């Protein structure tokens, strides 16, 4: 135990310790639960702690290991974003609407990670229904950035990113619809990976925008991300959009070099909009990759700006339908004493949904309305295809695309609350990756005034291996990912 510093421990280190028998899963789990108890009040990254369940699975994990029946992640603690349905454990999507919702089923991701042996500590904070880039739209209040508790951790998987950064768990799950894994990973200085759309089943993940949503790992290292990804993905008969493609061994994909790998730099990602300090960090990280033998080439992604408008038509349109089921009839929040059916609908939804969720439902409903469909939704679908084509063309001259994960470091809580457009700009580098369904990784690329910033690596469809390998090479050369924030009473 003494040799393990949980504020910075990786899953790979914990697995070694568990294998060596220097620590049990029960001890490890208790230690993380204590860290959550101690630090979560300040970070507010965890919204539900499952003490009993965690201790029971830890005990079971120790037994399995004793019998030699362990899986790849047996006994390793993990937190799930509160968008993954967990049987018998409250799953809220950080919304008043689902504040008391206990699903009777597990998401496929939860099932798979359970099968791999993880110990689930609880559920993490997030933007309500994953709508937001700062974790400020949560019904449970914002989560705070462990690097500076006055700043946001990013979003929507802000709680998951903050939890890993604060050492409340070595691993957490996230979902990414327009940048919701990569942007908070960038702002919290951790590794976050959104794989190709279809790589991981969406079954049991509460839907925001079905054609864009994709789950992924949030970890300290690329090595851990590969480990976790292997356990999470695969064809699922319950999700028609899950891809019937072979699942490679992502850990062995980390081996090997990146000599001759062509990394494309879209000039649109390095425009004036990009903070100069961020640009410096990103270029420094790219230099490291160059030193590993990668070749930097210029590429064009000419419709990057249109990506924002496209995304903010398609995502709200799909959300407006996905969130129609929260009507106060069968589950979720119901208003008191409805006078009639319309009153039941109107008040249950007005009371149950926060402002940003309502804004997006309204935008989406408008975009699909008679007379506007062609001008908005259909046009957005056309632009979405053009954006995919841009990436396809770029990948003719490069093997990876690199750029910043976010335009800036973490901003102060409240700074963008009155300006939804400024908030939406947070995802300018990430959301066209969702529109094209590509894999995108954010890895720490250094600190600017003690605030982290991430490098984004984007791959061809289903070429997670190249993305992970490049990220791993960077982490072998640099120590950005090893840096941890100093939390108040941390060194105890």
């Amino acid at each position: 135990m003494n040799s393990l510093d949980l504020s910075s421990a990786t899953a790979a280190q914990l697995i070694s310790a568990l294998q060596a028998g220097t620590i049990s899963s029960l001890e490890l789990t208790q230690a993380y639960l204590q860290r959550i108890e101690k630090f979560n009040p300040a970070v507010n990254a965890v919204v539900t702690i499952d003490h009993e369940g965690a201790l029971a699975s830890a005990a079971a994990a120790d037994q399995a290991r004793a019998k030699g029946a362990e899986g790849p992640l047996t006994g390793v603690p993990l937190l799930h974003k509160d968008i993954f349905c967990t049987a018998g454990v409250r799953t809220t999507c950080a919304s008043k609407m689902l504040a008391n919702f206990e699903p009777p089923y597990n998401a496929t991701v939860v099932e798979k990670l359970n099968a791999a042996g993880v110990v689930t500590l609880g559920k993490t904070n997030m933007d309500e229904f994953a709508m937001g880039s700062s974790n400020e739209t949560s019904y449970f209040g914002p989560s705070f950035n462990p690097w500076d508790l006055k700043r946001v951790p990013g979003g929507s998987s802000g709680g998951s990113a903050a939890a890993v950064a604060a050492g409340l768990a070595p691993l957490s799950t996230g979902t990414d619809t327009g940048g919701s894994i990569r942007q908070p990973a960038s702002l919290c200085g951790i590794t976050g990976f959104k794989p190709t759309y279809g790589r991981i089943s969406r079954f049991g993940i509460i839907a925001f925008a079905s054609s864009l949503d994709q789950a992924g790992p949030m970890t300290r290292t690329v090595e851990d991300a590969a480990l976790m990804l292997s356990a999470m993905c695969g064809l699922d008969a319950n999700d028609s959009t899950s891809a019937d493609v072979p699942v490679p061994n992502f850990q062995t994909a980390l081996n090997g070099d990146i000599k001759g790998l062509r990394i494309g730099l879209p000039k649109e990602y390095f425009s004036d909009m990009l903070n100069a300090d961020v640009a410096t960090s990103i270029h420094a990280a790219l230099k490291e990759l160059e030193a590993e033998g990668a070749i930097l080439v210029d590429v064009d992604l000419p419709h990057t700006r249109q990506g924002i408008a496209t995304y903010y038509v398609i995502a709200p349109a799909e959300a407006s339908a996905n969130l129609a089921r929260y009507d106060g009839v069968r589950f979720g929040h119901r208003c008191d004493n409805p006078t009639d059916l319309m009153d039941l609908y109107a008040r249950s939804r007005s009371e149950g949904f926060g402002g940003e969720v309502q804004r997006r439902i309204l935008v989406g409903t408008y975009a699909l309305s008679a007379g506007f469909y062609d001008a908005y939704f259909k046009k957005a679908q056309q632009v979405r295809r053009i954006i995919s084509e841009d990436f396809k063309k770029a990948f003719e001259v490069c093997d990876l695309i690199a750029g910043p994960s976010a335009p800036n470091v973490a901003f102060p809580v409240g700074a963008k609350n009155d300006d939804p457009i400024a908030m939406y700009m947070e995802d300018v580098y990430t959301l066209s990756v969702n529109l094209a369904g590509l894999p995108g990784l954010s890895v720490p690329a250094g600190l600017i005034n003690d605030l982290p910033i991430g490098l984004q690596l984007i791959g061809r469809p289903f070429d997670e291996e190249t993305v992970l390998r490049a990220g791993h090479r960077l982490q072998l050369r640099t120590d950005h990912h090893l840096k941890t924030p100093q939390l108040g009473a941390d060194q105890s």
Partner: protein
Amino acid sequence: MSWETVMGLEVHLQLATASKIFSGAANKFGADPNSQACAVDLGMPGMLPVLNEQAVRYAVMFGLGIDARIGKRSIFDRKNYFYPDLPKGYQVSQFFEPIVCEGVFQVPLSDGSLFSIRITRAHLEEDAGKSVHDRFPGQTGVDLNRAGTPLLEIVTEPDFRTAEQAVAYLKALHSLVTYLGISDGNMAEGSMRCDINLSLRPTGSDSYGTRTEIKNVNSFRFVEKAIAAETARQQELLEDGVSIVQETRLYDADRDETRSMRSKEVANDYRYFPEPDLLPIVLTDDYIDSVRQALPELPAAKRERFIAQYQLSDYDAALLVSSPDMAAYFEKAVTLCDEPKAIANWMLGDLSAALNKEGIPVSQSPVEPQNLAGLVARITDGTLSSKLGKQVFEALWQGEGSADQIIEARGLRQVSDTGALEKLVADVMSENQDQVAQYRAADSSKQKKLIGFFVGQIMKASKGQANPQLINKILTEALDSD
């Protein structure tokens, strides 16, 4: 002014798949409320639809059954509206690209002639649940057993001019889908529901008037009555110079009238958009061919074959093929007794009457094909007179055994023994000396009447068992010889 009624029909057909269209829950009618709805049907958070391949196959079977173009790439769309029995707040349907495109359906009318209806499209969708308004005073219950039942919505062009055509189409559709085995087509249980789009125009005009839509008419008879009622209503308004309001109406069978649904319920903007949770349905030619190969013989082809193979009339053939069970019954009986016309007559006469009276389908007939074949065989070979045949049929219906057993047990065998018949003839002639004398004095036309008298007396004396052909022969010889 005389008016022409113009109608197009939309039929919602529940497909008889084992499970629902997007979930593994059972697809059965009549279970306890909410006992056949799983998390997917309830629209629980995180649940996703998975398309039932059987529903796709059934839709393709239907398309091939009406010679329609099959959409090789069709997509699902979300139709958005709020209602308590619509769990997700949207219905998954096919709006932009349906699985069955334009086709033509040949409908036999009651006179045996054929009438063509153009099918616009048929698309797959999920049924909604049911709101139960009459069970909890002051409250509405929701039963989601029906939610997710696969539906095929079949839309026609405005090709109907009379209620008779509309009903004939629905009957032919019912017949087709039961042949295909894709639906039980039971209107009373809601597995086949009909919406009628109806407008009037001056006879001879080729433009369309404003139409109304009569929703969810649930029997052939109500379709006929709803059309009559709505036609009369529109005609009255038009003749008073009042224009028709385009709206959705309901047929109230108790009052035999249509009435407007509140416009609030129908003024919806459904905001259709492609369902992102499902992939497009892509059908290969090989798949479509394999479905075609596996199609059963359909009513139209069977009708033609019956006419050619069994020398049946158009009318009889149309009636016999109206249900697959009826046609199968007929063909089984014919293989046992090669008298198609006689078997058809018995089936469309006494058998149908008895089935209708008891309200049971031919599949549950107590008189099985071999029983009817046995009966017809005995009439054909002269063992039984046609008149006594009816008595034997009734006994068969009561389950008294085979035709032979009944004939034996009741002693109904026709007397064809010449000696016995000669004695009967002699007895009757000696008992009716006067008539014999009259006969011999009469001309040939009067003689025929008197023959009838003698036959009647002989049949009476033989309790109907005397072979009428032999009696005729023996009697004429006896009367003419002395």
